[in-house]
């Protein structure tokens, strides 16, 4: 195992870079970070749209969310990579394709979580905010979302962790992220499949566990005030 790591650590870390595209663990981390950073605001937006009082906003969002959720991520990746360029004539790179797919897929799941959080609040919270003269947008930003997001933060973190793991599906369109590289290494060494995939598993574990710990610490720092509206006010 040590010999394996000694021989291939750089390849595992950055792929063929600088003689080829950046890959390996670095690509996985960058891809995950970019996907999380983009999916979070989009998911928030879609989640708010999902429970919008305006039908013209709510319905198209519901259709989008239900459609994307009804399809395996693998298929979405395929479509984005093979089908989209055929239709639009624009060929996107593997990393870009994977990033867009992850953002869309993730945002849709995050939207459902955010919407659930908003729905879990007693209706009186919106009434209370609106009765003071706050606009719908202000009520969301100042009263509804701070509570809703706190309620669903464990689900949000799970979804973000799932995103890290989902980057491994880049493998099927030949994106040289860390799973792809691990498979390459396995092919090169041939006799040490168990060791190679143990290292890969440990890598994902460190990433995912790291993120959930980070989220936990952030949450605890913010959660000086963890109170649930549902405990206080009935409908």
């Amino acid at each position, binding site marked *: 195992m040590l010999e394996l790591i000694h021989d291939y650590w750089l390849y595992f870390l950055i792929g063929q870079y600088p003689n080829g595209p950046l890959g390996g663990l670095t690509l996985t981390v960058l891809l995950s970070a970019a996907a999380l950073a983009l999916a979070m605001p989009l998911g928030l937006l879609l989640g708010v749209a999902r429970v919008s009082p305006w039908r013209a906003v709510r319905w198209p969002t519901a259709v989008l969310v239900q459609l994307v959720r009804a399809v395996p991520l693998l298929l979405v990746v395929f479509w984005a990579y093979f089908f989209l360029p055929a239709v639009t004539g624009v060929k996107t790179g593997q990393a870009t394709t994977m990033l867009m797919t992850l953002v869309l897929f993730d945002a849709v799941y995050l939207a459902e979580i955010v919407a659930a959080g908003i729905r879990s609040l007693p209706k009186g919270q919106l009434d209370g905010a609106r*009765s003071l*003269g*706050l606009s719908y947008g202000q009520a969301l930003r100042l009263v509804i979302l701070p509570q809703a997001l706190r309620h669903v933060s464990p689900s949000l973190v799970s979804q973000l962790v799932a995103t890290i793991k989902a980057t491994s599906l880049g493998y099927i369109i030949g994106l040289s992220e860390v799973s792809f590289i691990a498979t390459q290494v396995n092919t090169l060494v041939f006799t040490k499949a168990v060791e190679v995939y143990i290292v890969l598993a440990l890598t994902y574990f460190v990433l995912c566990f790291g993120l959930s710990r980070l989220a936990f610490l952030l949450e605890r720092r913010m959660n000086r005030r963890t*109170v649930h509206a549902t405990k206080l*006010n009935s409908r």
Partner: protein
Amino acid sequence: MIVLDKVNKWYGQYHALADVTQRVEQNEVVVVCGPSGSGKSTLIRTLNRLEEIDGGSISIGGRDIHARGHDVNALRAGIGFVFQHFNLFPHLTSLENCMLAPVNLKRATKPEAKAYALELLDGVGLAHKADAYPHELSGGQQQRVAIARALAMRPPIMLFDEPTSALDPEMVGEVLQVMRKLAGQGMTMVCVTHEMGFARDVADRVWFMSEGRILEQGRPEDFFTNPTHPRAKQFLADRSGR
């Protein structure tokens, strides 16, 4: 100050408000009473457009508030509303609850809003709970904070929708006392309440509602001693029997 003219509202086939025509004068305290399901809450919620109406008109200060294009946020900012279930914001302290609207609606700077919020909390006897979160307060205390929060926008009108119905009996008095004080300061108030003692002592007029209609209205001394409508007689008899 508030003029209701043939106000109608339906929930599907259900006629929730039927031809309600009434006035509330400035500095007047009106108590709305009647059996549950008679439309009292619906009526009071139409006064700040938490409910829309299907016919008739409501004007406040001479302006038709249900007219198209009427700024609903400006309307609500000028009318305090107190809910049965308080609806305090649980992620904010008492003080922050009272500062949220004035600061975000740019009615006051933060220090101004804070000073006034503290004054209001002191007025409802809760200056010492300024930094407490709603879950650390009793029901009666929460409702008093909710009244302070509504007052923080300096509204000329206050609406109360069964403010004591969700409270334990021993906490009703402290909320009513705050409401009495407000009435004494000349606040224009419309209160949906089952507290007949409050109605008797504080109200200038009582509206009796049943099945979406105001069947009887008058000065409390007349209404309580000499109700004319049979439904009102029945209602008062039922309540005194308990």
